[in-house]
């Protein structure tokens, strides 16, 4: 059997981008394989009761280039390292934004930090959303919960390069109105003529005053008119969301070549060595986190 390094079978543009380390080394920060570069947190703002937005300024002298959907390994000294999605588009240069939920000890320590605190960054890593495949397409950009964090980088990219795409629809679902990330961005996208942005929440506390749609994210799909032959869907969200959204998209005629998913795994190294993000023969950190659904056929990706 020929090794898939030789076949480059994962995606058409070749996930093997990441196997030519030398070529991309220039645009990565961090030294050696495991030493991060040190940055100060520029600002911190609350997104929800559980999520904060951290902003890091990247000096002009640093040639940092990323694709929408890529991630970095973020170090909190004494607490280790965690994979965090980059939340801003590469078209918005000079800074990086990360929307981070307080979910464990490392993110808990991060939430205690103040502007000026030092963190470590390595990256960017992984394959982002394949913008070449999305160009000249109608887009269905679908996020659940924290999935809006990586998807926002693509939404901003679409906003900044609007002419490259046809109709763009954003579907976003969260548990409650409190849990909606990027509320001001969402309000702007809903007002904007650039996007058709629809929001849904699972439930609303009595007397909350929320007047939007209540239900589950897949419910937003059936009412849409979708031209399957020139539409591509991009999905980012919790694992339990995928089977239902994929089923709804298939009913709209989208095949597995037209569905792109970004998968959540806990990468410990980001460079395909530690084994924690393995999905059968894929390493999510170097072959993903964004995959074309076609490439995941026969694997345990939805586990």
């Amino acid at each position, binding site marked *: *059997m*020929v*090794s*898939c*390094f*030789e076949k480059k079978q994962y995606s058409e543009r070749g996930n093997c981008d*990441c*196997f030519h*380390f030398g070529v991309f080394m220039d645009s990565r920060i961090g*030294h*050696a*394989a*495991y*030493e991060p570069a*040190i940055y100060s947190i520029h600002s911190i703002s609350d997104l929800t009761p559980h999520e904060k937005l951290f902003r890091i300024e990247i000096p002009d002298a640093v040639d940092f280039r990323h694709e929408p959907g890529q991630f970095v390994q973020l*170090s909190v*000294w*004494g*607490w*280790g*390292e*965690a994979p965090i999605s980059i939340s801003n588009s590469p078209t918005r240069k000079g800074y990086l934004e990360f929307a981070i*939920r307080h*979910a*464990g000890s490392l*993110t808990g320590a991060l939430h205690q930090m103040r502007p000026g605190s*030092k963190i470590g960054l390595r990256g960017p890593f992984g394959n982002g959303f394949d913008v070449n495949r999305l160009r000249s397409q109608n887009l269905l950009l679908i996020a659940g919960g*924290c999935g809006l964090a990586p998807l926002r980088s693509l939404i901003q990219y679409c906003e900044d390069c609007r002419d490259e795409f046809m109709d763009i629809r954003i579907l976003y679902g969260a548990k409650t109105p409190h849990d909606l990330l990027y509320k001001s961005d969402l309000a702007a996208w809903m007002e904007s003529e650039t996007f058709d942005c629809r929001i849904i929440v699972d439930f609303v506390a009595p007397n909350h005053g929320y007047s939007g749609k209540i239900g589950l994210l897949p419910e937003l799909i059936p009412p849409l008119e979708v031209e399957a032959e020139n539409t591509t869907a991009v999905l980012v969200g*919790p*694992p339990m969301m995928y089977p239902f959204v994929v089923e709804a998209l298939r009913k709209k005629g989208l095949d597995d070549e037209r569905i792109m998913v970004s998968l*959540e*795994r*806990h990468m*410990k*190294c980001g*460079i*395909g*060595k*530690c*084994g*924690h*993000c*393995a*999905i*059968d*023969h894929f390493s999510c950190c*170097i072959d993903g986190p964004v995959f074309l659904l076609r490439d995941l056929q026969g694997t*345990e990706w939805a*586990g």
Partner: protein
Amino acid sequence: MKTITCDQFHHFLYSIREDFEIVGPVILHDGTLSLGRLTAEPLALFAGRIPFRFTSLFFPHSERLFAMSDEYRFDKSGSSAKPLLVVGWRAEDLEALEFIDEFFRTGFRDDVFCDRRQSSVVIGVSGRCGVNGEFCRISEGKCDMELIYDGKHFIMAEYTENGRFLSEKIVWGEETDSLEALLQESRALRTPEREILQTASQLLMRNQVDDDFWAEIADRCIQCTSCTNVCPTCTCFDVYDMRLKRKIERYRMWDSCQMSGFMREASGHNPLASQSDRTRRRIRHKLVDDLHRWGRMTCFLCGRCDDVCPTGIGMKAVAAEIVERFG
């Protein structure tokens, strides 16, 4: 090719002790066969297979990735350790080493592994060097030098510049050309276990092994993680920080896919939530996934997991059961 006696070889090792850190099989005072430094006692080159990973010399159980001061400066003080010279690799161990060399070098270069590996010298041992003189397969490469035992002498086969460099330093020994008969004997060794492994791999690839089978094997697993701890091709690790006075040190430590929290994320999502999933992964990873990714199965039948598993579900045992039930 030169021949050399075991005593002469040890004389040679003692003569280069200043230049190399020499490691190989040793017998501890309680009779345990282990890996250790060369001491006044000769290495135990005929005492059988060491029960744990030979590859741990280059990918140790725990190692520092970096240290950083509280002023955010990396501690660049390099180790001045002598290069490692490791004697006693069997053919299966060398195949495992060849794989993890490729694994850590391909794509993103793992400089922590590669730096340690780069300066090392690896010497294999084969031929009639089994515990009772049984024949051990000749590797015919994959190391700097191989010592092939013909029952009386080691015949030295050098495969790299490092090997030739060492060989030139050996002043004893006679030239011989008697390797051909040993090579033929080695190549004629039957490998029924490899055939079983290949059949099991094909059955797994064709999805002919059902979920009930994995549930049954998983029921027998006590999650001791011995199998992954001794496996020479297991490379999974976890990363953690140590907070010390005025500095932090980041380490990596072997991790095991057989532990319930191996893939668990902070959100609670766990792609390997059940022991059945984890057992399936342990076997499939070596027999199917690595075949897809690396072009070869990554179980080289060293048999350590079978030896160490308290409930009899090592790789060879599970592969045999797969073939028996689904073949």
